[in-house]
């Protein structure tokens, strides 16, 4: 018998705390307009350049640079929807991106895994994606499954296999699309259609979305942008994610990095709206820092970038992938990862991004420790509970009990105590961790929890005929990839 997938829990955004004033947001927007109009963005794609040209953008064909006027930007973005749905296998797993809820996502997309059985580090495989999809299916706060690692055992079609592993192992929304050869993007659309049952249903409640990264500074990837156009035509929502690194691919000031990144994201959103008005898009910026001494990639920067990027995206009137996140640069589970997870979890309610959290990865989103997702989820759940409104009535205030106990006594023998003492659940990870008199490390308990879910949680699979159809699509995609590699 299939396991039951628990209902989703979402953070309310009513505790959102803005960092930026409207004046500051407008100053930044003016900077973005200026960059897009005077500097431009590189689109190394004839398809994209033609679309821009058809809509009277200033196209420099030699350098593949497009310059956009504020009027054209505003006109194009006026068709981008503020709110839309990311579909789950059942409606109870649908994510409504309307600014009122923050849904938690897994982090992605890494390349290395600590094998759950051997505990040795190795390259990631499709089976890891599938396993993590099942684990996340059982964790109520995770609403958005982003393949945490890549299916490196599948070559060019790795992203399609990641999508397949997600769709067949969780009933939640899957971030199944990414940058692929444009010839392969259509196969992802077909997989989504099979899961949805029809074109119409796929458009209404798309079971997958895509994430397309820019190339900082101010450039896009040919395959990325052309895949995005395929997804947009099919009504599959997509986030455009800029990942500026301060000091190398972005100015060394946070604001410089944000304005350059914003220009990158906005230019792609404009293209999509010009090509397919009304296509659902969301905004995403992940700022990192070049380590001044080593040139290393630093993602945990003491700056409220998450909350700022949410405001910047919302100022363009589109949903946002971003906000508080638990992901750290730590290479192992310990003080560093714990402090980032704790601070990141605590900042989720203040962030207010529609999709955020980035649970489950270490080492700058590259390394997957199985137990990390359990630890991150636990901390996020504690914060989720800490922000719940307290409901109580007169009987909860227990006047009679207090009066009967009186000053200086105790409540141990009261019926009221027996009735309510178990109302407050203790964390299986951080509270109930004794073995005899010895405290057990949280990660050890978390690994046990991981193994338990791994052994016991098997969500209801897709119908057999849909599974077969997905296999056929994958086989065709693998064949197409082979042709692409051999140049046929």
């Amino acid at each position, binding site marked *: 018998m299939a396991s039951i997938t628990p209902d989703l829990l979402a953070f309310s955004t009513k505790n959102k705390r803005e960092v930026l004033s409207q004046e500051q947001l407008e100053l930044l927007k003016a900077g973005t307009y200026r960059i897009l109009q005077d500097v431009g963005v590189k689109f190394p794609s004839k398809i994209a350049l033609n679309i821009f040209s058809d809509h009277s953008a200033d196209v420099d064909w030699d350098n593949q640079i497009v310059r956009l006027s504020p009027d054209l930007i505003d006109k194009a973005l006026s068709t981008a929807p503020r709110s839309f749905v990311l579909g789950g296998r059942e409606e109870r797993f649908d994510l409504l991106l309307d600014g009122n809820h923050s849904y938690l996502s897994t982090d992605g997309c890494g390349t290395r895994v600590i094998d759950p059985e051997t505990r040795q580090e190795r390259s990631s495989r499709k089976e890891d994606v599938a396993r993590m999809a099942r684990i996340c299916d059982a964790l109520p706060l995770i609403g958005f499954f982003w393949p945490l690692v890549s299916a490196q055992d599948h070559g060019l079609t790795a992203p399609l296999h990641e999508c397949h592993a997600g769709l067949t192992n969780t009933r939640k929304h899957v971030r199944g699309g990414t940058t692929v050869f444009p010839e392969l993007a259509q196969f992802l659309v077909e997989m989504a259609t099979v899961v949805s049952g029809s074109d119409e249903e796929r458009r209404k409640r798309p079971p997958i979305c895509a994430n397309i990264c820019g190339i900082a500074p101010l450039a896009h990837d040919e395959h990325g942008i052309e895949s995005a156009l395929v997804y947009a035509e099919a009504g599959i929502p997509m986030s455009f994610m800029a990942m500026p690194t301060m000091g190398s691919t972005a100015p060394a000031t946070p604001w410089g990095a944000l304005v350059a990144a914003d220009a990158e994201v906005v230019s792609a959103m404009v293209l999509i709206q010009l090509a397919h008005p009304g296509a659902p898009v969301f905004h995403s910026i992940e700022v990192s820092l070049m380590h*001044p001494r080593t040139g290393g990639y630093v993602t945990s920067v003491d700056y409220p970038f998450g909350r700022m990027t949410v405001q910047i995206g919302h100022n363009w009137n589109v949903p946002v992938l971003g906000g508080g996140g638990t992901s750290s640069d730590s290479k192992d589970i310990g003080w560093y990862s*714990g*402090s980032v997870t704790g601070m990141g979890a605590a900042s989720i309610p203040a962030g207010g991004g529609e999709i955020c959290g980035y649970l489950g990865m270490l080492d700058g989103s590259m390394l997957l420790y199985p137990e990390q997702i359990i630890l991150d989820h636990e901390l996020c759940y*504690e914060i989720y509970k*800490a922000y719940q*409104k307290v409901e109580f009535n007169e009987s909860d205030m227990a006047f009679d009990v207090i009066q009967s106990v009186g000053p200086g006594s105790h409540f141990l023998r009261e019926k009221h105590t027996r009735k309510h003492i178990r109302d407050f659940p203790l964390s299986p990870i951080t509270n109930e961790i004794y073995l005899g008199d010895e405290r057990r490390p*949280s990660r050890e308990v978390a690994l046990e929890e991981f193994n338990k879910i791994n052994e016991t949680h098997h969500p209801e699979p897709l119908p057999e005929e849909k599974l077969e159809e997905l296999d056929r699509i994958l086989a065709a995609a693998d064949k197409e990839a082979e042709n692409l590699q051999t140049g046929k």
Partner: protein
Amino acid sequence: MERPPIEPLRTSRKLSFLDDQQLKDLQEATLQIMENTGVQFPSDKALDIFAEHGAIVDRVSQIVKIPRDLVIRAMGKVPRYFTLGARNPEFDLILQDGVSYFTNDGCGHNVVDFKTGEKRASTKKDVGMAARINDYLSSMAFSWTMVSAQDCGLTSPLHEIDVTWRNNTKHYQSVTMMGEKICRYGVEMATVLRGSEEELRSRPPLSLIVCTIAPLVQDKEAIEGALVLGEKGIPIVIMSMPTMGTTAPATYAGALAVGDAEVISATVLMQLANPGTPVFHSIFHAWADPRTAAYVGYPLDSRARYAPVEIAHHWGMPSLGGAFGTEASEPDSWRAAAEIATDPLMVALAGAEIVTGIGLRDTYTTLYPESFILDDDIYHSARFSLLDMDVNPETLAVDVIAAVKPGGHFLSQKHTRKNMRTSMVRGVSHQLDKMGKYRNPSEYARERIQWILDNHHPEPPPEDVQKEINTILKIADKELKS
């Protein structure tokens, strides 16, 4: 040597966990408990004060029932904001909306010796060490008794004051001073330090935290000590620590009502005795593990953790909020970091005026000196996340972006060289070894502690003042230890 300035958490944004009606309901519950059930004050002095002001006093059970009119009248005298004076006037803390002043945790009784690594009972020397580290760190706006001077016997609270002042120039809040006699000596020491009673009242360098005994009992020594400080206008914190299921009802609202009644009944006494005495409100509620009865500060569901801050403000009182606590017994484990890191942002957004909790482990009992640095790092992470942003043409760098062009890089830009090193505030987790790899945060934290202990020596009180304090201590030792 240069000492970093205090950097409190500042935010104009507020979190609220309770609505107005719930706050009214809780206040009504407190009034009903005080009026109908009463609170035990095992102190003739306190009972006399209540009796003189029309409270119903049962001399046999020592239970006082306080009519609501009397509560409301007395609570009208509590100041909402006041100043906590410091030895160094630069560190005076002016309580105000939107600013949270933090300090270390207290009061532990174990120290993991910094040199030997041995876990042992804390001593006066450890109190001095903690005070010195506190003095150097910008996260510490004032000083708390971090561990107790267990080698000083009955007068340990006075020795803790003495050694703290010799090692710290910020405001000191004693966690251990109890009883009329000890507190009179404490006041005398503070008067000597400040120079006059008038100065003591306007810029008190000392304050005191006293705990109640749940449910609904005051401690004789604590309350009589607090009354002594109240006479001189020295601020008091009244802290209740109800544990759901043992010393409080097993429902959240019931525990808050019991805790609030304990705090408010003591505050009323302070105002009846010395109207206008500055008092902080504080409730640290906890849970009893249903299986082991152990004290649990952080269960999975600790909703509305900072609702007590709102309850304090609803009474028109400043609040002491607790943060940073962890039940982890190791200084640097995942669990210690995770539990500690969830709190500072939340308690600042809740608006607590003063916050304690940095640096102890094992449920407020054990000091690893390096924990100061580890927790300080988390504190600053929260502080940075609440800082205002600076947006101007230099930081926006649109001209630099235009010069670099799409697909270029910023490595060769003057703007990068100028800003690169200030973009990254290197925390304990970002320290590099010779190979350019991140170092163990704990190892780095130990080095920082060693550096502070070797290099930071705050100016002690003037010689004549110290001489007089020494004399007071000698007299106190003689009187109280004999």
